[in-house]
């Protein structure tokens, strides 16, 4: 636990053949650079060898770069301080050891939803996960069931498509005639939709759901929750709600949910997703019973 080197051994085994003869000048340069970094890290390790470090095992993949086309795990030893999050550790690893380490992040405070990752077998936000809560080594992978673009970055397009397919916008039956008058909403109603409005589009839920993994057309927990947010908002009115329910009731809508609960478990905003989906199923049955 006293070194901070990027673990040469595992890197070498991970990409043994591609590492050997550095063919292009660019590669030679990078190889040299890696050497320098290791050297730097080694020196740092010597001077602060009593410092505590954490071992990260990070998924690496780049479709373009020789040696990264085969996915592999890289090891990074990162000095630990109290309160350090997984995101902090990744940033440290990138800025200190390997500037090509790629991941999305922005707000650092669990509100932008960029850094949902698969950390020690669970979908979590890097910025909201304290290293001290995890077992070592900390295994960091891109979200499962999504195309990997590079390293920890996944393609979110499908997720966005699903979100947008539920007509995720407020669309009231009618508005107050006075332009300067607000629509009234009871506190109870706001309370009812409150949790559902918290979604930050991180995609953790969708990635955790086995059904979404199997059925590409399944709207998924986040999109259904988005629809719930509007369907339950009393300001919208009954006509709109009916149309929303039609979207929810389609083949790949609420009925696909098999109540696995993993979405609810991983949601960083603690949205009771399964509950919302189930409520919509009952709503749908209720509204259909009328015609029976």
């Amino acid at each position, binding site marked *: 636990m006293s070194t901070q080197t990027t673990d040469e051994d595992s890197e070498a085994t991970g990409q043994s053949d591609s590492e050997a003869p550095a063919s292009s000048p660019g590669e030679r340069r990078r190889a040299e650079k890696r050497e320098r970094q290791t050297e730097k890290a080694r020196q740092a390790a010597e001077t602060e060898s009593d410092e505590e470090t954490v071992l990260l095992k990070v998924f690496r993949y780049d479709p373009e770069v020789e040696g990264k086309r085969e996915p592999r795990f890289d090891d990074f030893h990162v000095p630990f301080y109290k309160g350090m999050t997984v995101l902090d550790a990744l940033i440290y690893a990138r800025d200190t050891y390997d500037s090509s380490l790629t991941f999305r992040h922005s707000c650092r405070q669990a509100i932008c939803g960029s850094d949902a990752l698969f950390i020690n077998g669970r979908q979590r936000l890097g910025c909201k996960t304290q290293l001290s809560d995890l077992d070592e080594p900390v295994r960091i992978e891109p979200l499962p069931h999504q195309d990997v673009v590079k390293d920890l970055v996944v393609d979110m397009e499908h997720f966005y498509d699903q979100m947008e397919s539920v007509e995720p916008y407020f669309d009231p039956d009618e508005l107050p005639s006075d332009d300067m008058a607000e629509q009234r909403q009871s506190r109870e109603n706001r309370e009812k939709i409150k949790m559902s409005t918290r979604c930050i589009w991180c995609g953790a839920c969708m990635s955790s759901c086995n059904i979404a993994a*199997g*059925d590409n*057309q399944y709207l998924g927990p986040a999109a259904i929750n988005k629809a719930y947010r509007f369907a339950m908002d009393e300001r919208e009115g009954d006509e709109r709600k009916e149309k929303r329910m039609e979207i929810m*009731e389609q*083949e790949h809508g609420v009925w*696909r949910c*098999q109540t696995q609960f993993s979405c609810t478990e991983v949601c960083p905003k603690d949205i009771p997703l399964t509950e919302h989906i189930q409520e919509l*199923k009952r709503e749908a*049955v209720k509204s*259909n019973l009328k015609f029976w």
Partner: protein
Amino acid sequence: MAEQYSSFQRGGTRWVLQRLTAVFLIGVLAFHFMLLHFVNHAADITFLGTQARMSQVGYFATMWLFLVTATFHGVNGVYNALINMGLEGSRKRAVGGVLALAGLLLILQGTRVAIAMTNLL
């Protein structure tokens, strides 16, 4: 049942039926197990005993409903499980057709058996 499996379907009819049959099945299945394993030991089943039970209209009706609901519940369940895996288009229709047919045959055969068990014929 065939049109239940048409490609586009609004409303959770199958979903509700899956639950309703489940509720029914809880009762009958428990009853069935009790009767044929605890009250009457399985090894001691004879045709005469079966015939005696099946000739009661109430019991016959229950068992037949058991057959139908269990078939629906089971076949529909399998169908669902398959769509959950992302079955689409013609493959989906084919699977639906095969399952519906299998279910139908099962019910037919089951009904024949059930009738044979009575002393009516």
